[in-house]
């Protein structure tokens, strides 16, 4: 009897691999026909007008990259600064306040943040810029930055946590101040974990859907300059979410949306893989992160 249970547990153990493989195969099956049906020069063109048969995915890819990049420019320094503060400097009472609040942030559903962004953040941005609309790439980036902060902070904190105490003691014993020890000893020793924090935060941001769909205005156009940061934009995730409900199964549009999903899958897979390789290399180097 026991061997039945153990066999089931083994199968369940492998299930994660099965699910990832299934998702990938499914995206391939439904997404690849897009690359067959739509000529490549159409697919990688700059116009996304599915109703006219124009499936240029460039604006969507650039849109996703732009909001993610700006989100990381905001979130990375904030996240690392907060992680250092929480782990190295903050008195106990401050830590007791900060950590649960960051968990609360991680728990807020993205649609709620998107809603808040629409009704509160967007009007502020519209008025402060005198822009025609507050639904811009920047609004999306701002929300994405806060949504990726919990990931960045917790991974960076773990990395700082793994730096042995003796490193800090040695720094202080050499006559360095605590401030100098943090930035010249502890943070450099934790750099691979901090890099991982950035990558995982980026993965979180690029895959985020609802908040981006609700606050970026969803105009599929290619940004040409910095001022376009304050114009509407459209991401890959938002496009799938907004359009999939209305397309017929098996239509070209249907397959192209799966193709966009396939691109997203590959991008996040690559990010995860490089983060994981940092993790595995660190382990084989022996202990110290």
């Amino acid at each position, binding site marked *: 009897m*026991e061997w039945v249970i153990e066999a089931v547990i083994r199968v369940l153990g492998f299930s994660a691999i099965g699910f990832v493989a299934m998702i990938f195969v*499914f995206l391939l099956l439904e997404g690849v026909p897009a690359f067959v049906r739509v000529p490549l020069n159409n697919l990688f063109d700059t116009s996304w007008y599915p109703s006219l048969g124009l499936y240029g995915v460039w604006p969507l890819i650039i849109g996703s990259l732009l909001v993610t990049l700006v989100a990381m420019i905001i979130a990375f320094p904030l996240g690392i600064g907060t992680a250092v*503060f929480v782990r190295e400097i903050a008195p106990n009472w401050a830590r007791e306040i900060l950590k649960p609040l960051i968990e609360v942030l991680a728990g807020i559903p993205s649609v709620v943040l998107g809603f808040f962004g629409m009704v509160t953040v967007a009007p502020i941005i519209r008025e402060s810029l005198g822009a025609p609309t507050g639904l811009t790439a920047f609004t999306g980036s701002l929300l994405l930055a806060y949504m990726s902060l919990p990931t960045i902070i917790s991974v960076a904190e773990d990395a700082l946590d793994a730096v042995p105490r003796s490193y800090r003691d040695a720094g202080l014993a050499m006559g360095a101040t605590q401030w100098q020890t943090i930035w010249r000893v502890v943070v450099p020793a934790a750099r691979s974990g901090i890099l991982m924090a950035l990558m995982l935060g980026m993965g979180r941001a690029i895959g985020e859907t609802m908040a981006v769909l609700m606050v970026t205005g969803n105009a599929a156009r290619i940004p040409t300059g910095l001022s376009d940061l304050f114009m509407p934009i459209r991401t890959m995730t938002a496009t799938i979410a907004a359009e999939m409900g209305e397309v017929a199964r098996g239509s070209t549009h249907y397959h192209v949306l799966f193709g966009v999903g396939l691109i997203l899958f590959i991008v996040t897979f690559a990010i995860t893989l490089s983060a994981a390789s940092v993790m595995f290399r660190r382990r084989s180097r022996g202990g110290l992160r």
Partner: protein
Amino acid sequence: MSQQLAQKLGFAFLGLMSLVVIVPILLVVGAIIYAGFPALSWEFLSAMPREGMRAGGIFPAIVGTLLLTLGTGLVAIPVGVGAAVYLSEYARDNLFTRAIRLAIVNLASIPSVVYGLFGLGLFVLLLQFGTSILAGSLTLAIMTLPVIISTSEEALRAVPMEYRTVSESLGGTHWQGIRRIVLPQALPGIITGVILGLLRAAGETAPILFTVAAFFLPRLPQSAFDQTMALPYHLYVISTQVPGMPLSIQHGTALVLLAFVLSMNLVATLIRSYFRRRREW
């Protein structure tokens, strides 16, 4: 002295950064409670929506979210905890186990809307479940797995090795040791992880967009093959798709969803800290 001053300024700057992180969190939660609270009433929570959702309550959306969460748990808990038991108690540290771990990390990083595509393609269309609670629960369950697996594994691994060796030295089999000793000891940690995972599922919108969600369905679902409304999707719909929607209803819906998610979060935290103080190791 100037080094001391630099340190003081530096610390103050990092403290300021932390404030920049947490103040908006307080603002978001505070604003939603402040604006949503007046909209709450017994009718809002217990009545069907009326007049194209512009009046009445959000009862079917609340029930839908509860059903989806339940369905997700029914699938994700056995699979997730089983996988965690395998990783913690059976797996050797080899290439294969590494592949499993990589798959779990990868599963966690797949964008939620891609889960939606997958659920649509496999459960709704290929397996012909239709847009249904069943299709949505299965989709959400796969998405929730990585959270449940990694938190459960952590809880299992925290149980000291001696518990297992003592069990085996008394003649217990490997499985008996897991079933009677390790799992009960790890249970609080597993429950915490399960709640955190299910919360994530309850608040997700993108995976249910094309797999379950009904735009407007003023009745309760009749079976697992029925569509349903759900709180996150409802909030999305009424705040973007319905013109002339009273703001108070939007705020009220946001508050109900937020309160549901945060109170479960609190329960998970309380369970964790309560048992952490009481455990024997």
